[in-house]
Every structure is written in C-alpha cells, then in structure tokens.
C-alpha cells in the first residue's frame, strides 16, 4: 500500500482559493504549478520522512467550506476535501451522514432538489463548479456518475451506452459502435453482451445492469467518476466484479465512491473520508484511517461501535 496524501491547509486559517494553472500539486504548504502539458500521470514525490505521505498527486476536485441545506435542515456542514487524480477516494459513514449529498454536489445533481441551498465552493481543476457561468451539461460530461440502483434506460444495450455520445452529437454509426465496444470492454461487460447489443438492457441481471451503467458513464469519456454505493444492491459475486472494475478504472479515471461498506472502502480506495452527521470527521490515506484513525468517532465507527 503506497500511502499518499494531499496536504490541505487548515480551512479555518486559509481563505478559499481556486486552483490555478493547468495542473496543481500540493506538497505540504507549498503549491507547485506544473505547466508541462504532457504531464498526465501522477508524479511520485518521495518524502519518506512525512508520516502517511510518500506520494503526491494532482488535485482534481477541491471543496472548501461546502454546506448544503434542504430547506431548514443542514445536510452538510463546512466540508473541505480534496480529491486526487487517478485515485479512488471513498466516502464512508452511517446512513444519512451526508456522504451521498456531498457526492451529488460534485456534479451538481443536487440542483434538481426543490428547496436546496448550497454554500461554500467546489472547484474542478480551476473551474468554480457553482459559478453562474458554469455549463452544467459540460460539467456532467466531465464528471460521470453511477447510481446506487442500476438505472438502465428501457432501451437496447447499445442505445444505453450510446446515449451520452449521441447527446454530444455523435451520429456516425461506426464511431458510435467503437465507443460502445470500448466502453463495454472497460466495464468488463463486453464478452457477455457482444452478441446481443440490440436486446433490451432490462433483460440483463442486476450486476450486468450496473456494469452497463458504468459503461454508459464511461462512454462520455469523463475525467471523474462518481459512484454512489454502486454495489449495495448486488450479490457478493457481482460486488466483487464491480470492485475489481473500480480497481482497474482508477488508472484512467479519478474516482469518488460512496459506500456504507467499510470493507469495500478498505479494499478499493486509496483515500477515505469519514462523514458523520453532516460533518467530515477526518480524511486520510485509507490504510492510515483504518489502522490509526485520528479521531475517536472514526475509531468507534470503523470498529463497529455504532452505525
């Protein structure tokens, strides 16, 4: 396990600031900007003396003092979290702790909830997600999402995966076919469905449907993939397949996954954030959070004392 960390300046002492430049890397309190456009892979910065930090990577999403209100109820309280590139970040916590609400802020899916009010900031790279000038449609193409319950459209397998590319205006049949095949291969479903792409997606099993939904999300070529308890409705075998898939996908995508299953978080994620009653209690490298949590509440939760 190679622990890696994004050192976040204390949110109480530092003003919110958007990320600037093409790539930004936090090393301790310094900010290093990388101008090299070919820079895509996370650099490994060797800092053996820093506890829990042996590798640094680019921050893709950063929130600062993010709060969400549903009417009078505050569902999220001042969350400041950074999501590193090409890593799996897990959000854990008991039901109703706000982890799904947080996830839905990252691609503005909360916008559709009546009476919702959002305070604080979310940045995707240097783009303010909640800026009035932000194109939500473009944002959601960059930040894909997989839901708790698989939700294939009542259309054919092909049309499900081709839905996103078609929205982007791709009409060429062979190009669409290429994207569909590519996406289904990446979601490890291709071999099971390649003979019956024109069958209804609703004929697939639950686990296959969820992998289809992942393929559908990948087909828009997102940079970030948000997963909201993607395996919670599946049997153990299908869950294992999804987890393996997540592990493979992290090479290409930045993944944020909500799970109430701590073993799952431990298995698939590089970093974990623990949410409780609308607050983020702590976050850190997964191994560190599960072995030597800093907070008592985290320890109580991961040792099964509540939740």
């Amino acid at each position, binding site marked *: 396990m190679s622990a890696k960390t994004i050192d976040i300046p204390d949110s109480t002492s530092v003003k919110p600031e958007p990320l600037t430049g093409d790539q930004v890397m936090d090393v301790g309190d310094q900010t290093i900007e990388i101008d090299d456009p070919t820079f895509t892979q996370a650099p490994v910065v060797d800092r053996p003396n820093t506890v829990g930090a042996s590798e640094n990577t680019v921050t893709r999403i950063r929130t600062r003092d993010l709060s969400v209100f549903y009417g009078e109820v505050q569902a999220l309280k001042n969350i400041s979290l950074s999501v590193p590139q090409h890593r799996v970040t897990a959000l854990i916590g008991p039901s109703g702790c706000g982890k799904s609400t947080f996830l839905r802020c990252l691609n503005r*899916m909360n916008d559709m909830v009546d009476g919702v009010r959002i305070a604080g900031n979310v940045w995707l790279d240097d783009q303010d997600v909640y800026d009035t000038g932000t194109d939500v449609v473009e*944002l959601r193409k960059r930040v894909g999402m997989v839901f708790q319950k698989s939700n294939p*459209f009542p259309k054919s397998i092909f049309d499900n995966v081709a839905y996103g590319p078609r*929205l982007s205006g791709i009409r060429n049949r062979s190009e669409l076919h290429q994207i569909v095949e590519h996406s289904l291969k990446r979601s490890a479903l291709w071999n099971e469905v390649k003979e019956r792409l024109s069958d209804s997606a609703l004929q697939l099993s639950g686990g296959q449907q969820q992998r289809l939904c992942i393929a559908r999300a990948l087909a828009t070529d997102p940079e970030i993939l948000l997963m909201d308890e993607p395996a919670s409705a599946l049997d153990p075998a299908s869950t294992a397949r999804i987890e393996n898939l997540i592990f493979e996908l992290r090479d290409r995508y930045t993944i944020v996954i909500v799970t109430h299953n701590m073993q799952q978080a431990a298995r698939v994620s590089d970093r974990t954030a623990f949410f409780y009653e609308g607050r983020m209690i702590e976050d850190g490298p997964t191994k560190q959070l599960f072995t030597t949590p800093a907070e008592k509440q985290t320890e109580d939760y991961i040792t099964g004392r509540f939740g």
Partner: protein
Amino acid sequence: MSSVSTFVKPVSPQHQATGVQGRRKTFEKLIQAFLFVCAGISVATTVCIVVVLLVESVQFFFEVSIVEFLTGTKWTPLLKPQHFGILPLLCGTMLVAVGSAVVSIPVGLGTAIYLSEYAPPRLREVIKPVVEVLAGIPSVVYGYFAVVTISPMIRTVFPSAGPFNAASACIVVGIMTLPMIISLSEDALRAVPRSLRQGAYALGATKYDVTTQVVVPAAMSGIVASFLLAISRAVGETMAVTLAAGATPKATLNPLESIQTMTAYIIQISQGDTPAGTLEHRTIFAVGLTLFIVTLMINLLAQWFLSQVREKYE
C-alpha cells in the same frame, strides 16, 4: 375453525360458542352474498345490453343485408327510397374522432409533459384542479358552447362553413377529451422512475433531452393508451356532436360541412317520432351495435397498451 376455538377456550360453554360462531358465519355469508349481487348487477347489465343489441340487430339484418349495411354509401332510413348504408354515419363519427384527436393529442400531451416535467409544484397545484373542472362540465354545455361560440368563429375564418359543422364538433370534443389525456398521460410520465431521469441528467442531458429521449419513450404505452381512450370517448360522445355537427348523414371528410355521427343518429330516432318495432326504429340497434364494437375494440387496444406499462416497471 370451531375445534380451534374449543381448544383455546375449553371452559366456555359449548352451546354459547357455537351460537356466536353461527351468527358470525351467517353474517359473513350475507355480506358475501350482498357483495356478489353488487358485482353481478354490472355483469348482468352488460350481458342484457349485448343480448338486446344482438337480438334487435339480427332482426334488422333479416330485412337489410349486412353487405348493404356495411358498404352502402347512403343513409336515408326515414326517406323514400330507403338506403341503409352506415358508411356516412361511420364517416361522420370517424371525422369527429380524428378531428378531436388532432386538437386533444398535441394540447393534452403538451399539458401532461408540462405538468409532469416542467411546471413548478405551485403552478401544478393550480392547473390540475382547473383540468378537473374541465372534466366536470356537462357535455350539453360543451355542445351549446360549440354552437354559439366556436361555430361563429369558424364561420368568420371560413365563410363557406355552415352553422352546424364537423369542425366545431371536433374542437369541442377535443377540449372535452383533454382531461382524460392529460391525467392519464401525466400518470404515465410520473410513473417513469426518477432514477432514469437522474441517469440521463448525469450524462449531461438537458431537460428537453431527458423529456423527449427518456421519459416520453418510457411512458409511451401509457400515453398511447390515453390517446385511445380519448378517441373512444370521442366516438361515443353524443350530446355535443348532436348539437354542433348537425344531422346530415354525409360521407365527407370536409370538416366545414354538416354531418351526422352514429350517436347523433340514435338520438334523432330515439326522440320518439319513429314507432318502436318498425324497421326504421330497429336501425338504431344496428348502429348501436356498430358503435359498441368500435369502442370495444379501441378500449381493448388501450387496455393492452396499459398492461404493457405495468409489465415494464414491476
């Protein structure tokens, strides 16, 4: 049953227990019998109506060949020479049914989509009761409205139109059937799981994309069923078309002309000038049977579409 009770309450006197139980059983049986009769009434009525329609129609078809009835293009049972071709009446009915659908389908589906997908909750709270009021207006009022308001408007635009014309009937029947399309289509649209909408939004779909590519296709069978039920209602609609469309059986597709529908013809004969038991009077049973078969077919088709909806989400 009684043995269980005896085991549970071994001390209670046997005769008393059976007395209470006996009364309870009799009561249960009475209730069951009463409910059976209630259900039986509608079944018996349906059977009786079909039998009467069939018996009278068969007598009619002894005198008029079924081929003439179905293929004749003249309908003049009250004038000499008599002609018994139902096509003019059928044509009139279909003209009103199709014409009303031209009005009700776009407006009704548009309203349903607006209510289900676009309208803010508060506005929906206002629109829905208004639509229900529309459904509660008596059809004779609609007919009157067609004659005194819509028809003059049509004649202003098309001076060739008569005071009674199919177009005014089409418009008014279209308005009458709107509530049916709106409420059934809206139900179908709302039955589409929220998760499907979210799935599409998460892929970068706009509201228009989600509505036209995901929600409406998913609800399509329910929407089609609402169209069919509205058309069926238009076929059976009587009062408004009798008032608005006139009483001229004519095989025409020109909506500006006066026509007569099957229902309007039945009204005309039923008003009492035609003695019962005559051939002229029996025509209404043959026409009624035709009407019954047409609406039954449409309703069965609509039921089939509705069953498709249920299959999809259960």
